[in-house]
């Protein structure tokens, strides 16, 4: 009864999938952060600041009527 292989497979799959997911989050985070920095520098270039849309997401209401 040597079931060590099964035990090993189960634990490696757990850590493999979670590891892949962490890498997925990490790369995505890095890419998005780069994009934010790029957009922010572009915004600073375009002086003077006008018509900020910064309230757009926050007071959004779900549903229509």
């Amino acid at each position: 009864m040597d079931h060590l292989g099964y035990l090993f497979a189960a634990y490696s799959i757990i850590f493999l999938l979670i590891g892949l997911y962490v890498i997925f989050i990490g790369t995505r985070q890095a890419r998005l952060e780069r994009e934010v920095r790029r957009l922010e520098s572009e915004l600073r270039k375009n002086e003077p600041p006008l018509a900020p849309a910064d309230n757009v997401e926050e007071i959004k209401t779900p549903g229509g009527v």
Partner: protein
Amino acid sequence: MKNPISIGLAAATCLSMVAALFMVFVYVPTEAEQGIVQRIFYFHLPCAWVAFLGFGIVALAGGLYLWLGHKVWDDLSYAAAELGMLFCTLVLVTGSIWAKPIWGVWWTWDSRLTTTFILWLLYGSYLLLRAFADDTDGIARFAAVLGIVGVLDIPIIIISVRLWRTIHPAVLLTRQGEHGLQDLRMVATLLVSLAAFTIMFVWLLWMRVATLRLRTRIVRLRRTLALRELAEAHR
């Protein structure tokens, strides 16, 4: 990712996970009947627990989004669904790997397996809906509704599947945790693993919500830029 909460959660995850692994592979005694594969259980059950936790958060955050309308609830709901899917997959895979040596089959339509599989399908349909949709306000409401309906359905799913499989083969009984945990050390190991997985879940959730928030911020920045270009062009 570089804020103190995130680092703290990552450290706590690592520490508790190392402790859990130590207990599973060194501390806990081997279960008499099933032998060494029974050790899968100490990570299998925590996976199931966080998968369920994920469902709860999907519905709760979805409800809060419909009620309060703030995008952060939608982001939380989406992140929880993704994590739920991840851990639900792990439950099915580790369950299968455990079943093979013990029952001789990879899959059986046992009530727990069936229920988990249906929950996996629910997560799948939620994520497919989000993948298919354009990134508008509408999809957040649709996903919230699907998430809420899905969670309300879970008790009925569990009952129906249980009734569907009223007669359990005897071997299935040993699979149920309670029967295998005669030793206090086994209980302790399970509890530590549960804690480790819960902390890891919170950490992953935190990181995923952070990336989704960044996406929202990018949309906002792009909108501001688009407005400026318009104003400029009109000057």
